[in-house]
């Protein structure tokens, strides 16, 4: 499990308008590129100062490629990050609050306690 890395993906994509569009248009390609080029970047350091150990598990990579917010929630990805990014990508295709409510309905089966989001 690498909740931190899932969050790092959601965080770095959400804050960059070009990456938001790229992830919407090409989910698998963006995830693969990101894992190869960005996953081991230490934010706030120069590019050469990379980490060496960060990688997705197969399930995590699949959930990101399939833009499966329910699976991401189940893995303990930070729900605020997932929600914010997914609203950015998909709210535009729906009426007011329609996407947010459908997002919640897809999770109706989930009971407390929710998956732990501690990293």
């Amino acid at each position, binding site marked *: 499990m690498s909740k*931190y890395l899932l*969050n*790092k993906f959601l*965080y770095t994509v*959400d*804050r960059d*308008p070009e990456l938001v569009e790229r992830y919407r248009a090409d989910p698998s390609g963006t995830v693969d590129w990101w894992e190869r080029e960005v996953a081991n970047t*230490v*934010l*706030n350091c120069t590019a050469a100062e990379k980490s060496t150990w960060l990688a997705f598990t197969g399930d995590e990579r699949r959930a990101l490629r399939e833009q499966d*917010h329910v699976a991401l*929630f189940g893995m303990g990805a*930070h*729900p*605020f*990050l*997932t*929600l*914010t990014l997914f*609203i*950015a990508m998909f709210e535009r295709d729906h009426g007011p*609050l329609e996407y*947010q*409510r459908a*997002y*919640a*309905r897809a*999770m*109706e*089966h*989930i009971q*407390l*306690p*929710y998956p*732990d*989001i*501690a*990293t």
Partner: protein
Amino acid sequence: MATVAAVIASTHHPFYYRASTSTGADRPPFADEWVAKIEAFRATLTRAEPDVLVMVGSDHFHQLWLDNMPQFLVGKAPFFDANWYNEEREFGLPRMRLAGDEELAAYLLREGLDAGFDLAFSNELRIDHSVTCPIITLRPQADLPVVPVYTNIFAPPMPRPERFVALGRALRRMVEAWPSDKRVAIIGTGHLSLELGGPRQFGPHGPDPEFDRKAVAWIANGDVDGCLAEVTLDSLHAPGNATHGFMDFMLMMGAAGNGVKADYTDSLDLFHTMEAYFTWYPEGARS
């Protein structure tokens, strides 16, 4: 010594700016009532005639991130740029720039460290809607210097509720002992019950109206003990998965004082989450 001109606790609703400025068919049916309540709340700060604002809020993964996460942080800078691309995108919030009060920030850092709070600091902090929403609602002219105090209510492990109350008490003591003739308002924003990114989000009310009812009573009555008897890091999961933001209200209850009733209380039941507004006047009620 400085004067605590007001202690103010509020929800910070990022949709207020858009709701209050929209017109015609875009204007939601609840906007007029919301604006009226906000204008009445705003008057409680105006009446206090503050010179400087200590602003307690929480970064929403904008500048503070999991590779380097402070629990409590004071912004010490001459200016704070404010609001981020994703807040502009989702909430329509404007970019802003607020002046800082470096003297008060330096004082709070020194005194806070000496009082047992290992406060982090930032000399270049871009603040987000947890601070700008109360500027928009309470001081839209944005003409007063601020000292942002950020808390971690977002990324576990977090400090326990007792620690938030203790920091609020310490902030109040420190401001009262600040060798200055300025009038300081201590303003903090958090949430009542709130769910983000889970099955209970964006319902017709907040996810737990019963929690909200109790929370408003705790705050309005200054019932710190009653609140602490029920609220723990674990218990806050039940009312909604983002309800840890209530700990910023608990910080403000610490700043207001144990058993001290709010001089002004109001609330507004909206979809998704309940709004709540509280003002205390430590000098006595102002007319």
